[in-house]
């Protein structure tokens, strides 16, 4: 916990440094780029790092009273795995070359398989499926990287960006790009490849689900953005198909299908996980518009979505550990007697739906503005449709909580622990703060985090 607290401070200092002095490039053991390995801390990476370390710290605070009882003395290994996961994600955010990205991807994935499997029972099987699919994704990504390496002879992102424009007519570049996209798509639960994600996050232990759900898919999405905008140029057209169009179409599919599937769930964690899939789609819609407003909206929505997913899985964790409820109906019976739970659920779900005082609204607002600017009305329709579906499944949840006032149940619950209050309170406040201070944050992203050539 101390380590992560220090990490939060360091990441904020780093952000401050990057804002005032420009990006920092760290070259490992003095070998000059492109021969050596490089870490790049530019504006985007620094912003995401602050988010990542803060959510990691909150996740560890939450772990205390909820960690699996069967672990006993092996709890130390459990915390080690969490730290390994957070450091691997940091590596993905900073990595300056494609192969290091792969290594960090796999380190993070290995620790998350273990963290899912710790719960035992059904989680073992979910973790096994996650492992098979995740490794297939990683292999495809590595295959794509080796295609690009065979063509250009370099792995460094900046160096690749220099050499690729001359090679875009080559079929091998297209093959490598597609393999990389499919591989990362499996890792971030993009819609045709999302099969592992809801099960893994539903059966994962309550204590680790918030960290896994809020961070892994978002950070892999960030790696995807880096490859699209930093390695390939955003305006790349391959065989008459702009790659950004591809991204926007995938986003539209994910946004609508994910939200429709969420509507059909009874288990709260399952519902939140499908909600996360649809929000990945919304972020991709923003990123695929190819203009500044859409890109910044997408990144801002990514930050919001990480906070909201963490909040939702904290809520689900508190509901399961403290009140022993798993389904929407049971949550309705408990609702009235759990003020902290219901209060934060209301605020976070306002954010998920996207109503004005929260950050979710402003993210969607900039994404829609970007889509209008690009004249892409299908994307606007998809964002609106996905918002309506999100509204529908949260209405289902609240109907249970606020209507069944007559059937006062005979549950009696004790006071909830301080760490629960702390995590619920902080994420709820963060959803509101991201909304209220959205203007300066978006301005910061516009100034610091834009890719070259946009």
């Amino acid at each position, binding site marked *: 916990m101390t380590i992560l607290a220090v990490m939060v401070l360091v990441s904020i200092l780093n952000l401050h440094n990057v804002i005032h002095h420009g990006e920092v490039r760290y070259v490992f053991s003095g070998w000059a780029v492109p021969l050596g390995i490089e870490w790049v801390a530019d504006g985007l990476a620094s912003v995401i790092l602050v988010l990542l370390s803060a959510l990691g710290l909150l996740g560890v605070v939450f772990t205390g009273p909820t960690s699996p009882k069967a672990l006993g003395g092996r709890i130390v290994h459990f915390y080690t795995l969490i730290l390994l996961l957070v450091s691997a994600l940091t590596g993905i955010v900073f990595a300056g070359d494609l192969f290091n990205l792969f290594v960090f991807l796999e380190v993070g994935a290995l620790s998350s398989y273990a963290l899912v499997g710790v719960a035992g029972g059904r989680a073992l099987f979910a973790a096994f499926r996650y*492992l098979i699919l995740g490794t297939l994704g990683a292999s495809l990504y590595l295959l794509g990287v080796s295609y690009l390496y065979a063509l250009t002879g370099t792995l460094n992102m900046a160096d690749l960006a220099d050499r690729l424009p001359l090679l875009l007519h080559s079929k091998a570049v297209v093959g490598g790009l597609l393999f990389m996209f499919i591989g990362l798509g499996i890792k971030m639960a993009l819609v045709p490849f999302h099969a592992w994600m809801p099960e893994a996050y539903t059966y994962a232990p309550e204590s680790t689900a918030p960290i896994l759900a809020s961070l892994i898919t978002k950070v892999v999405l960030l790696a995807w953005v880096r490859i699209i905008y930093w390695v390939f140029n955003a305006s790349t057209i391959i065989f008459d198909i702009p790659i950004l169009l591809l991204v926007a179409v995938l986003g539209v599919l994910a946004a609508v299908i994910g939200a429709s599937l969420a509507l059909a769930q009874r288990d709260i964690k399952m519902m939140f996980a499908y909600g996360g899939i649809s929000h990945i789609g919304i972020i991709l819609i923003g990123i695929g518009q190819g203009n500044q407003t859409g890109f910044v909206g997408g990144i801002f929505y990514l930050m919001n979505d990480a906070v909201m997913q963490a909040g939702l899985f904290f809520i689900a964790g508190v509901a399961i550990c403290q009140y022993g409820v798993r389904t929407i109906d049971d949550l309705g019976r408990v609702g009235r007697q759990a003020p902290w739970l219901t209060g934060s659920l209301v605020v976070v779900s306002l954010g998920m739906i996207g109503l004005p005082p929260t950050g979710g609204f402003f993210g969607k607002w900039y994404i829609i503005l970007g889509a209008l600017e690009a004249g892409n009305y299908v994307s606007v329709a998809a964002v609106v449709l996905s918002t309506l579906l999100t509204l529908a499944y949260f209405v289902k949840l609240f109907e249970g909580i606020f209507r069944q006032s007559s059937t006062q149940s005979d549950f009696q619950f004790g006071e909830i622990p301080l760490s629960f209050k702390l995590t619920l309170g902080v994420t709820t406040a963060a959803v509101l703060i991201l909304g209220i201070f959205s203007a300066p944050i978006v301005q910061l992203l516009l100034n610091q985090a834009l890719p070259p050539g946009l």
Partner: protein
Amino acid sequence: MFDAIFAVLQRPNFLTFVIIFLWGFYIMVTRYNLVKKLIGMYLVQTSVIFFLVSISAKEGATVPILLSITEPVQAANYANPLPHVLTLTAIVVGVATLGVGLALCGAIYRKYGSLDEQKILEKLE
């Protein structure tokens, strides 16, 4: 048609890579036994590693160790070491993944008494 076949036969390493990759993928998709799925997964990883090694092969080249510091370096005489280094890292990652997968298999077997996916799914219902 024949041109395409001859073009493929010119590159036997690519053909081998594709066969191993699809073979592993086929095993992963069709077999119900969890350990067999892991074997398929490992074949997929191995095929990618094979591809990486094969693209760095060079005829008449030797290991990249500099014998004399006075003569100018002839890059054509040395094999490119970088793909091999990448391969080593990828092998380590693959072994670690396989280890975690086998540990999960062991835990599943102790819990459900079977490694057959269909039997486990029946017990889960």
